[in-house]
């Protein structure tokens, strides 16, 4: 690192007031894409939530607030709570494992590093569904994991490893962990480790340097990791469906039930809208936090 750390951290000079027309034109296709295929469908889903349902899976004429009122269904809080805690726990574990993984990936000797990153990405070569079904075989009551655990005396022969919230949590962590590792690794790779040396020179322990210099330095990546893990977790449908038991339903499963077996599109739309709002809330918080952290010239002052 030849450049001074502070100049590396500085955000690139932006001049929003001097946007030229051709920049608009360049942005137009992606804006159009977002508008037509993301914002418009979302608004349609929101509006269907205010329509009455008909008995045959259609959307009736006129407008109503009945569907919104029916969200007060006494059975929902348990499902919402389960969705929330599973998503939060998945995010927390993914961060706890992802940060050290990203750190060691970035610190690994260059000849190992590419192999290790490759190994992180390799699972993506296999279909998501196939990997979940592989878990079913691993956790099968007569499968390998179970046999090892029983042999070690860690579980008794009547306990089931599958079809409980624990199995859902395990498979969700497995699925989303690479999404947490990759952004953290990308940031950790660019991090200037001389700052950690400087911190230890100034008397900080290694842990203190890690906590007060490294973590704030990759703060943006941590936010990204939280977003890319937490948001898809909230919308999980396949994982609780395949490895979850009779009491592992999440909001995604309820939406599927409403749309398919109950033939109630407005209700499915209302639940989807609720989910979208639940996703937007952390996004806005993160966006605000990111803006704040972007404006600061971060780590040097904080480490002092």
């Amino acid at each position: 690192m030849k450049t001074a750390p502070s100049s590396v951290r500085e955000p690139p000079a932006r001049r929003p007031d001097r946007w030229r027309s051709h920049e608009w034109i360049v942005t137009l296709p992606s804006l159009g894409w977002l508008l037509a295929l993301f914002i418009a469908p979302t608004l349609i889903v929101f509006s269907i939530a205010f329509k009455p349902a008909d008995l045959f899976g259609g959307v009736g004429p006129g407008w109503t607030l009945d569907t919104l009122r029916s969200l007060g269904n006494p059975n929902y809080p348990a499902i919402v709570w389960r969705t929330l805690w599973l998503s939060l726990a998945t995010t927390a574990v993914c961060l706890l494992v992802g940060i050290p993984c990203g750190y060691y990936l970035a610190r690994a000797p260059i000849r190992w590093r590419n192999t290790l990153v490759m190994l992180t990405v390799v699972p993506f070569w296999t279909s998501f569904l196939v990997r979940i079904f592989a878990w079913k075989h691993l956790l099968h009551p007569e499968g390998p994991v179970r046999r090892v655990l029983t042999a070690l005396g860690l579980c008794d022969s009547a306990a089931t490893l599958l079809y409980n919230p624990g199995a859902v949590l395990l498979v969700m962590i497995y699925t989303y962990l690479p999404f947490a590792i990759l952004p953290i690794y990308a940031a950790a790779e660019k991090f200037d480790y001389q700052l950690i040396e400087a911190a230890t020179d100034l008397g900080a322990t290694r842990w203190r340097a890690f906590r007060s210099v490294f973590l704030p330095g990759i703060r943006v990546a941590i936010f990204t990791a939280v977003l890319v893990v937490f948001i898809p977790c909230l919308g999980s449908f396949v994982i609780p469906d395949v490895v979850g038991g009779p009491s592992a339903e999440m909001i995604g499963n309820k939406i599927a039930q409403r749309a398919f077996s109950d033939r109630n599109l407005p209700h499915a739309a209302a639940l989807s809208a609720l989910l979208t709002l639940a996703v937007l809330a952390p996004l806005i918080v993160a966006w605000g936090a990111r803006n704040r952290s972007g404006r600061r010239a971060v780590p040097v002052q904080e480490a002092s």
Partner: protein
Amino acid sequence: MNRLLKCLLWSGVMAWAIAGGGCRRAGPVLRLYNWADYIKPELVQRFEREQGCRVMLDTFDSNEALYAKLKAGATGYDLIFPSSYMVAVMRHQGMLQPIRRELIPNLSHLDPAYARYTADERCEYSVPYMMSNSGLAYRRNRVPDFKPTWAMFDRQDLAGRMTMLNDMRETIGAALKFLGYSLNTTNEAELASARDVVIRWKKNLAKFDNEQYKNGIASGEFLVTHGYNGDVLQVMTENEDVAYALPREGVSIACDEMAIPMGAREVELAHAFINFLHDPAIAAENAEFTCFLCPNLASYELLSEEIRHNPAVFLPEDILARSEVIRDLGADNAKYIRVWDQIKAAE
């Protein structure tokens, strides 16, 4: 200018490749939308040879999925295989074309005994394809003291190794039968007691499942599952330890029917396919493969002993008398939805 010409030329080549070059075999294409493992593939190939056409098969896993897809405007299917209650709904919604009986001479072979289980006794909009029922699959050597009753789901020694269908009508229906009520009841008190029974059973269930139970019972992951007769009989041909039982309280019977949706392009070919499947020899061959009952009277004598005298396929009189067809309940479906929500939410 030269570049523009080249560009035009290439796009012409591409268009030709996409439109014509890709399909070498000429002739019409019949598009089926059916349940998985529900037709013998060799028979489809024979039909292709006989008619000089191609058949494309797409599958669905529930009547509701089929309905939702067609309701949302999916077109291009020429022949669909909904259960009778869904035929009634789709017919009411004007989603089906009338059947032209003169194109299906083999309709004369239909077994009148099963007509009352269909949605459409006179075959105006649909023709019966297969009869199914839902009972219990179990592992002979792993379940001590098995009894043919829905009360098996109360067996705590099998907790965590049993499944019931993830289908509100089937599963609440099993509890209603267990209690001696009709599985089409709209009586709130009966539904409430059925709810309590399913909630009690749920404590012993690994999950509610419609598809994976077949692999699960085959691999020994599950020891007792609630499932469809033909599906379980198919598993039994591969695994001798699996058996099928009809609960003595009665079961649900369903008829899956063939219907031609609005917007079908190959209407005559679809009729020809219905006629083909009701040719007695073909019907028998198909029934042997799928292990379901094709209500085709002339085909029965061509069936093997195993199928012809299998109580799981041809239900015994006493069970039949206590069994019912699931009917669409219209507005009263909401009662079942409410009960199902309570069951799913209960701890």
